[in-house]
């Protein structure tokens, strides 16, 4: 192998794209971590193309001779397997987030597949739905905007929504539409709903912030801003600002800055001998991270700490946000 063992491993983030605030923040976290250890930092984007994502990762493996740490948000869950296999074959260390097949486990690829991090969509999807339900006084009509249908987080968040609704029979789900995480599509769907259901709509649940903000704009253009409660998920800056302004009822911050940096940190420490993955318990190998529910109550504080200033992270606190092993 070309690379010397003494060389610092290159740290690599592989994400969907840099055209959305969520992943852009992820990327900043990654850069911050790389700087903190003085490693070379590379960003790869899939642009929604699984083949490209995997090919790029293999290219980096070839280029670094395997002396790298990869923190990847696979484009689709199936992509995780070839990525992990390639990393293992090359001797690189990999951390996956959000998407992976249920039967692919880090402990089957010791030590290279260090960990998988996810956030259970169910409780947070449910929490947002409950925020809405509370806001509209426990009864009324609600419509929901979903993400790409085959996407695991989209499925989980929807499930949370359904659980909340089941517990509140007075709230009726008027319609569920898929807007593919896209603001433009969300705007169109919301517009059509305004015709179809008119004043029956009391609240709009959206599976991410982009769609939620588009729904807010559709309401504003229709002269209903403020009359319909809306929630998103992801915790992007514009969403937090919208909560501060009272336009959005809530969102969930995953803290992509943490995801981008900590995913690398976990892999980096494993790679550089900080800990031995194969000795870690399973709830350190496949775990749920912690989301922060943001509503009007804590929006200002959250804004000050995480957005107005560069977040301060202790990159060595690698298990600090573990909230339990992932259940399939």
């Amino acid at each position, binding site marked *: 192998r070309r690379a010397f063992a003494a060389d610092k491993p290159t740290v690599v983030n592989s994400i969907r794209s840099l055209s959305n605030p969520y992943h852009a923040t992820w990327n900043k976290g990654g850069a911050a971590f790389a700087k903190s250890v003085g490693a070379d930092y590379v960003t790869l984007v899939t642009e929604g193309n699984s*083949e490209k994502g995997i*090919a790029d990762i293999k290219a980096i493996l070839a280029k670094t001779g395997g002396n790298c740490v990869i923190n990847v948000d696979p484009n689709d869950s199936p992509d995780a397997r070839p990525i992990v296999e390639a990393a293992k074959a090359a001797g690189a260390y990999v951390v996956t987030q959000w998407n992976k097949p249920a039967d692919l486990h880090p402990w089957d690829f010791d030590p290279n597949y260090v960990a998988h991090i996810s956030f259970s969509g169910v409780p947070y999807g449910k929490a947002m739905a409950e925020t809405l339900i509370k806001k509209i006084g426990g009864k009324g009509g609600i419509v929901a905007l979903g993400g790409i249908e085959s996407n695991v987080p989209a499925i989980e968040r929807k499930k949370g929504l359904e659980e909340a609704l089941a517990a509140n029979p007075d709230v009726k789900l008027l319609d569920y539409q898929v807007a593919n995480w896209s603001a433009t599509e969300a705007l169109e769907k919301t517009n059509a709903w305004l015709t179809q259901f008119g004043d029956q709509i009391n609240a709009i649940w959206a599976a991410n912030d982009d769609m939620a903000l588009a729904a807010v704009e559709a309401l504003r253009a229709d002269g209903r801003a403020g009359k319909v409660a809306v929630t998103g998920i992801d915790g992007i800056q514009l969403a937090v600002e919208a909560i501060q302004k009272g336009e959005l009822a809530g969102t969930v911050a995953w803290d992509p800055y943490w995801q981008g940096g900590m995913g690398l940190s976990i892999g980096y420490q494993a790679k550089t001998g900080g800990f031995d993955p194969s000795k870690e318990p399973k709830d350190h190998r496949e775990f749920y991270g912690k989301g922060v529910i943001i509503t009007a109550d804590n929006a200002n504080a959250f804004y000050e700490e995480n957005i107005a200033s560069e977040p301060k992270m202790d990159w060595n606190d690698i298990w600090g946000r573990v909230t339990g092993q992932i259940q399939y």
Partner: protein
Amino acid sequence: MNTMLDTLRSDGVRQWLPLVTLVILVILVGTFQPAFLDVNTLLQLASDTAVLFILATGVTFVIMLGGIDLSIQSMASLSSVVVALTLARYGYAAFVFAFGLGVLAGLLSGIAHVRLRIPSFIATLAMGGVLYSAALVTSRERSITLGESERAYLGWITGTLFGIPNVVIIALIVLAIAHVLQSRTPFGRYSAAIGAGEPAAYASGVKVDRQKIFAFVLSASCAALAGIVLVGRLASGSPTLASELLLPSIAAVVVGGTSITGGVGSIWRTLVGALIISVVRIGMTFLGVNIFAQNIVFGVVLVAAVAITIDRSKIPIVK
């Protein structure tokens, strides 16, 4: 610029321009990053190009006739879903089934195009929507991961033969078949004739409709095959598995120098085009091109490559 092009006007030289472009790109990347020229890296590059090439080959048949097929990525995804769903139950027959579905879809696009006289752009865009919906419904909107036992059926895709990845061999077989179809059979000749002058082909007794339908069948079945190969590579099927492969496939055809308006082109050119696309993409990763600049560089290099590879003498008017 023009004088340089002029000196390259002679047919013998021109024919090799796409290949020369490819080689220059490879050497360029290799100069800065010798790891790129490693045999393993190049084999990796070849395997990573296989799916793109198979898709592009299919659509080449349609483009030669002057049409376009925008349904290929949905077809490939649907095919992956079908394989993933049926592999456990039917074993190898699942692949045949998915391939057959490709033939059927191509038949439908082709018939919608020629019988209803709908421009192929629209007919296949719409067909792509239908196929995507079909994939969503059959997969119940999620990706289907293959279990250990099912993955055993994928050996012919994932394995290697004398150190060469099987996907590369599959791609080479597709290349051979497509090349023969395109350059040696009446179908290939008729396609070129229809692409270059449909009225004359029609008046010469060529069964234009039948050739067109056949081209769409080839395109969709190549897409189905690409889907099957993707199942092998990703050990799963998903309604979005082949997302974002459409434009790169068409770009591969055009970058190789095949005329987007039909009549001029070849499968060889598509192979070179697909490789150029891969090399540029992977090359940018190798060279560490700033992530924010990559799309810009990619766009510029594509246009520059076409400027070199297309054969303007055989295209009456560049539209």
